[in-house]
Structures are given as C-alpha cells and as structure tokens.
C-alpha cells in the first residue's frame, strides 16, 4: 500500500497560543488510520487544516505525490479530501437528498442545482449503505438525532473520494449503527480509500483501525503505529503523557428517596411510568440517541416537560415544573450540549460558575462582588481546573475544563440534593474525564443523588450503582451495575 495523503511538520498559532507545533500524519490507501489525542491536543485544529477549513502557518501537505495548499474546504473537496464532521453540519430546511448532495452543491461549478445533486437511485444506494431508511424528500428537521448522524456520514461516504476524514462519527450512534458503519468503512477501504478516523473510544480504535497516530500538545508522539504494536494502556499513556488507574466504585450507601417523579411520558401519548431517586446513589440511564434517555434526564432536572409528569421532592408536595423551581429545590443540572444549553461563552468563567447562586452573594438584589469567587477557590484545586483561574472567558477553556465549569456551577448550590448530568464526558479528554468521575463519586458518597445519562455504556458501568435502559421512549430494563454488557446492549437495541 502506498501513502497517498501526507501531512508533515504542520504548525498553527492562534495569537500567541500554539495549537500545533509539529504534527505529522501519513495515510495509506485502503487503510483505516486512527487519530487520537486528548482534548486540547490539537486534534480538531489538525483536522480543520487537513480539510482546508483552516490554513496552517507552516508544514506541507502532499496528496498523491503532489504538494497541495488548500485555500478552503472547497479546494480540499475538489481534490478528493472529504470530511465527516463531529458537530452537525446538516441543513434543517433542506431535504435529505439536498443534504446528501451538499458537497456537490457546495463545490458546484454548474449553476443548475439539479446537475449538482446525486440522482435518486445513487442517493438511495448510499442511504442503504449506512443503513438509513428515510425518504429522500423529507426535511432534515424531521429526522432523529441518530438518523442525522447517519445522514452526515452517508454524505461523506457517498462522495467519491481518495481520503475520507471522520471526526467522532459514532458519538450519537447506537452499537448496531456503529457496527454497520465499520462494515461500510471496510468496504470503502477495499476500494482503496484512505480513511482517517478520529475517536475517543479506545476499544473502537482497537477493533477496527489499522494504524494509530497520537497527538499530544500539538505534536505527533506516535506516528502510524500498527494496531497490534500498541496496547490500549500504551495509547492512553501516550495521550496523557502519564499513566492512570481507574478508581474503584464507591460503595453504595443508598439512603432515603430524594426525588419522586410520577407519570412521566417521554413523548406525547407514550406509556407513563414513575421513578424514584435515592440519596447517595448514582443512577445511570442509558439509551441510544433518540431513545428518550436524554429526555428522561431533562424531565428529572425540570428542564423539559414530561407530558403531565409530576416531580416532587420527598416529603414535600412541592411540584417542580421548570428549571427555576427545580434549582430552588436543590436539583442541579448539566445539560448534554454544553455550548448551546450550558455555557455563557462570551462571559467570564466566574460569571458562568456563579450563575445559579446569585442569591447567595447578594442582598436586596445587590451583588457583593467580593464574595463571588469565595466558594470556588477550593473547588478549582479539587477539580484541577486548567487554567486555575476564573477571570478568563469561558470560551478560552478546553472542552473538559468547560465541562468542569458547569460542575462548579452546580456544586455550589446551597441545598444540592440531586445532580442530573447528561453525557458527562462527551467530547472530554481522559484526564478531565477522570476528575469528573471522581467528583461524581465523592458527591454520591456525601449523600447526594446523582443521575447520569450517557450513551457510553462503559462510562455508566464504571460509575453507576444501578442502570435504567431506555428505548422507544420507555424504560425497558432496570439492573445493577455489574450486569452483562451484552444484555444491556441487546436491550438498548432490541426495543428500537
């Protein structure tokens, strides 16, 4: 196999920060190549450079023996480098067909729109390839999240290309879809496409990647190691620059019922059910995207309507129907999409962290600014927040540290009784993931109820005392944490 896409010595500065110093990568035709690294290691910048969305300051890219300079994504696309992005880049008001053809439309030279679209037969074929069963004429905002992710992948897969770059493609996929994706990628490989696969999931990588490249601190520390030459532990070590050992699960000291939720319907007309959360327990909720698992978390946090659900604190008859009353009752909440629903990106970290407890340092509506930072000093150290200060903009922190800010916000709630965390470590690097998990365990030990909703089964398994499996907008199973992974998986998949 020959190297068809090679990037060497890539560097990129933003202001005085150095995102990439010396990044190297060599893709071979017909090979799946994994790119790994912690958040902040420069992965996303590197990917943006490879697909032409960002210009590098130095280094060179060679495609099929020819040095190239991509001025824009359009240039890259025209030369056969096709991206599948991590964040949704679909167009809600356009049809599935038009979205499938988005690359063709985007780079079009022909002015007649139809000429730049796939023909319907081709389009259906591509959809079948990734296992997506929707009409070509439906609008994207009629699709579920999982379907959207598949469509996003189909768009990349369906375009003939020499290099396919997938950024966290399985984040919103269930196990079955993920398997299917892997099969599809094998097919493409067989046709000679070089595939760059970016993922956090080590077992994913171990299962399917032919070679692994690891970035740390803007440098390539492992360059194209063959899969069998490197162990999972080694991968983690290279990513972190150190080793870590997973913490043992905290012993359950389940106490009284904290929150009682009755008549929850996850969709209008769905079957209602009830749920109790106890002091000191970590309750995990799993389900594939679109199953209603996230919705259940939102309902428990008071952030979404449960179609007639009543949520009450134990011992009181107080009905909680929005976030405001939920927060007053001591229910903390970390939403799944931290940029859209959690953070105030333009404001300082301190303002982000103190948003829920303005009352705590104010009297008669007047803030005592000197007291604002007080409660956070200890927590910053405990959480290993980096940079360890709160006067920077929230947007200046890496993903993991942004997630930590959201935890800080909830931990200072004066009467925290229950913390609902959706996707606690999505897009978060391993170091941050560990400190977040540790903090959740300690919280549970101190008697606070924790609800964790995650699509990452491994995470839920290491963290939770009890598991709820949600599929098709209802709870299909309830089991203790040591349950067989396979059983859970089949339950997640079986009902949907």
């Amino acid at each position: 196999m020959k190297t068809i896409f090679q990037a060497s010595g890539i560097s990129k500065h933003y202001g005085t920060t150095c995102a990439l110093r010396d990044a190297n990568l060599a893709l071979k035709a017909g090979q799946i190549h994994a790119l790994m690294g912690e958040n902040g290691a420069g992965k996303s910048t590197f990917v943006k450079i490879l697909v032409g969305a960002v210009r590098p300051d130095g280094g060179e890219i060679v495609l099929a023996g020819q040095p190239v300079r991509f001025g824009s994504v359009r240039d890259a696309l025209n030369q056969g480098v096709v991206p599948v992005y991590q964040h949704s880049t679909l167009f809600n008001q356009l049809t599935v067909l038009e979205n499938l053809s988005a690359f063709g439309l985007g780079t079009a030279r022909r002015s007649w729109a139809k000429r730049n679209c796939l023909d319907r037969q081709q389009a259906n074929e591509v959809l079948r390839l990734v296992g997506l069963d929707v009409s070509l004429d439906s609008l994207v905002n009629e699709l579920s999240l999982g379907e959207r992710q598949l469509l996003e992948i189909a768009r990349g897969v369906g375009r003939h290309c020499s290099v396919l770059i997938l950024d966290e493609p399985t984040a919103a996929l269930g196990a079955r879809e993920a398997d299917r994706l892997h099969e599809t990628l094998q097919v493409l490989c067989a046709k000679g496409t070089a595939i760059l696969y970016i993922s956090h999931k080590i077992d994913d990588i171990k299962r399917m990647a032919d070679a692994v490249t690891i970035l740390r601190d803007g440098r390539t520390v492992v360059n194209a190691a063959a899969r069998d030459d490197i162990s999972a532990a080694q991968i983690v070590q290279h990513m972190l620059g150190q080793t870590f050992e997973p913490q043992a699960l905290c012993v359950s000291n389940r106490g009284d019922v904290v929150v009682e939720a009755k008549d929850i319907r996850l969709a209008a007309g769905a079957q209602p059910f009830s749920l109790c959360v106890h002091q000191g327990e970590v309750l995990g909720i799993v389900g594939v995207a679109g199953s209603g698992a996230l919705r259940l978390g939102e309902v428990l946090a008071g952030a979404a309507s449960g179609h007639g659900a009543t949520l009450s604190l134990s011992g009181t008859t107080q009905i909680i129907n929005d976030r405001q009353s939920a927060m007053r009752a001591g229910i903390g909440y970390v939403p799944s999409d931290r940029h859209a629903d959690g953070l105030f990106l333009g404001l300082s970290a301190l303002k982000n962290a103190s948003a829920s407890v303005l009352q705590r340092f104010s009297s008669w509506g007047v803030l005592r600014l000197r007291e604002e930072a007080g409660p956070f000093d200890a927590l910053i150290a405990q959480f290993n927040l980096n940079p360890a200060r709160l006067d920077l903009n929230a947007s200046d922190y890496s993903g993991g540290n942004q997630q930590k800010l959201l935890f800080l916000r909830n931990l200072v709630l004066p009467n925290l009784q229950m913390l609902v965390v959706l996707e606690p470590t999505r897009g978060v690097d391993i170091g941050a993931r560990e400190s977040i998990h540790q903090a959740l365990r300690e919280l549970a030990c101190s008697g606070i109820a924790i609800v964790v909703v995650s699509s990452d089964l491994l995470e839920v398994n290491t963290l939770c005392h009890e598991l709820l499996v949600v599929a098709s907008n209802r709870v299909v199973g309830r089991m203790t944490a040591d349950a067989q992974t396979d059983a859970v998986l089949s339950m997640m998949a079986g009902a949907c």
Partner: protein
Amino acid sequence: MTTFIKQRSAIALGSRIGVIAIPLVVFIVCVLFVPRFLSVDNLQNVLRVGSILLIAACGQAAILIVGGIDFSMGSAVALLSVVTVILAPEHGVALAFACGMCVAVLAGLCNGLLIAYLKLPAFLVTLGMLMVLHGLASLLSGGMPLDAAPSPSFLWLGSGHVAGIPVPIVLAVLAVLSLHFLLRYTVAGRGWFLVGTNFNAAVNAGLPARRSVLLAYVVAGLFCALAGAILTSRVGSGQPNLYPDLAFATIAVCAIGGIPLNGGRGSAVQVVCGALIIAMLNNAVVLLNLTSAWQQLLMAAVIAAAVLLPQLHTVRRRYTHLFKGNAQ
C-alpha cells in the same frame, strides 16, 4: 499560556482605552477645527442635547444586552409628551408628568410581555408598537402639536438648573450611574448579561430568564420615560413627531460605543462614549455650517469608522494571508 493570558488582558485593556479614546479624539479634532466649539456655553449645549439621547440610549443598551432591540422609543416619547400636555392644565404638572411617564413605562411593559412571554420577535413587536403608539399619539393630539402652558414648573426638567448645572445633565449623570450600578452590581443586571449571552443556558441554570427580559424592557421604558419627560419639558409641547428617529439614534449611539447587537455585552461607559460622539458631531456640523447632505455623509462615515476601527486588528489578521499569498 501565560503570555496568551497577558496578551488577552492587554487587548481587553486596549479596547477599554479605545472606548474612551475615540470620543477624546473626536473632541480634540472638534476643538482644533470647529470654530467656537470650545466655550462653556457651547459645551453645555452639547451636553444638554446629548443628555436626552444618552438617557434613552441607556434604555436601549439594557435591551441590547439582554439580546433584544427596541424600535418603538420615538413613538413612546411622543405619546408621553401628548399625554403630559393634555393632562397638565387640569391635574397639575407633577401628576401630568407622572402619568405621561407611566404611559412610556407601560409601552415598555407591553413590549416586554409580548417578547418575553408570547415569544414574539422583538424586531416585529417594537416595529408594530412604533406605528401603534404613533397612531395613538396622533389620535389624542389630533395630529397637531399641542402647546403646554409655559409655566416654570413645566419647563424645569428641560431648562432648569440644579446648583448651576442644567437639570438634563444632572439627570443624565444619574441615569448613567444607575445603569452602571444595575449592570455591574445587581442580580437583575447580571441576569441580563447571562440571558443575553445564552438564553437556553440561563434557563437551565435556573434563572428567571423571561422575567429578566421583561425587566429589561420595563427598565428601558423607565429610561425612555425620563428622556421623554425632559424632551417634553424642553420643547414645552406634546407632539406625535417629537423625536421620530430616537430609536435609530439610540441604536447608533450603542453601536458607536461598541455594544454589539447580539446581546450579552455592553457597559454604561460605552453608552456615554457613543452619546458624546454623536452629540459632539451634531453640534460640530452645525457650527461648521455644513449643508444637510454633508452632515449626513459625515455622520455615516463616523458611524462606519467607529464600528470598524476597534476590529481593525482582527480584520487585518483575517486577510493577511491574501497579502502573504501575493508575496510568495
């Protein structure tokens, strides 16, 4: 990382100085090139005219920070003036002004309710309100300017003095101080920043986001009422066309001061700077005796310059590759 932080705070400091620097430059240019600009009387004129704009702009700023916009201010002050002048002879000046100001606050409340609780787009609500309130003012006044009996008490707000300082300037200083206090030191002001930055996040953080939006419009109504009362007293009349483009003027003030229109950022200092620039400019073009055409062209150029200058460095960075590319 540390150098990065240092540079960041340097930029922050730079932009903070920049905010004050632009009006200073305008002031110096005016002093140098505009005849008779630098006299106590004239500067008092500048400030008096600027103070009305400034007070109304304080309201607009609060709304912009919370992520909204208000086009209806011009009509609100018009309705206020008409109501005040109609009520003054029978119910006394104080009560008349109180009622008039209530009307303006009510208009703000209406805007706020429709926007925050019925989730209507601010742009359309305030646009519709602009027409409705103007129609009401015309209906009440019969379309014509109504004259107030020129009692000293009626004119005090607009042309009186407190300790030798014109009342509008005193009130403007108070308004700016209270806006500064609101934005920096109160839960309500903090709420505006949070809601304006990210409405969803504010809801999820358990903040009363809707109420926060409503409050911003009511507070803006208050500022607008104060500006309208001064204006009414100053012209001694109630008119449907009292200050038709007040809303645009205040938006321009905020834009020149550097307050972005997509919410979450802004400060009282920026409002002051924007208002001062516009007030000085308005005064200078008259003193220079420019024709109305050149007055407008100059105004457009200054707005553009004020908006573009602060982001010059980012623009240059964004397009350096063009020049680099050519060189290679």
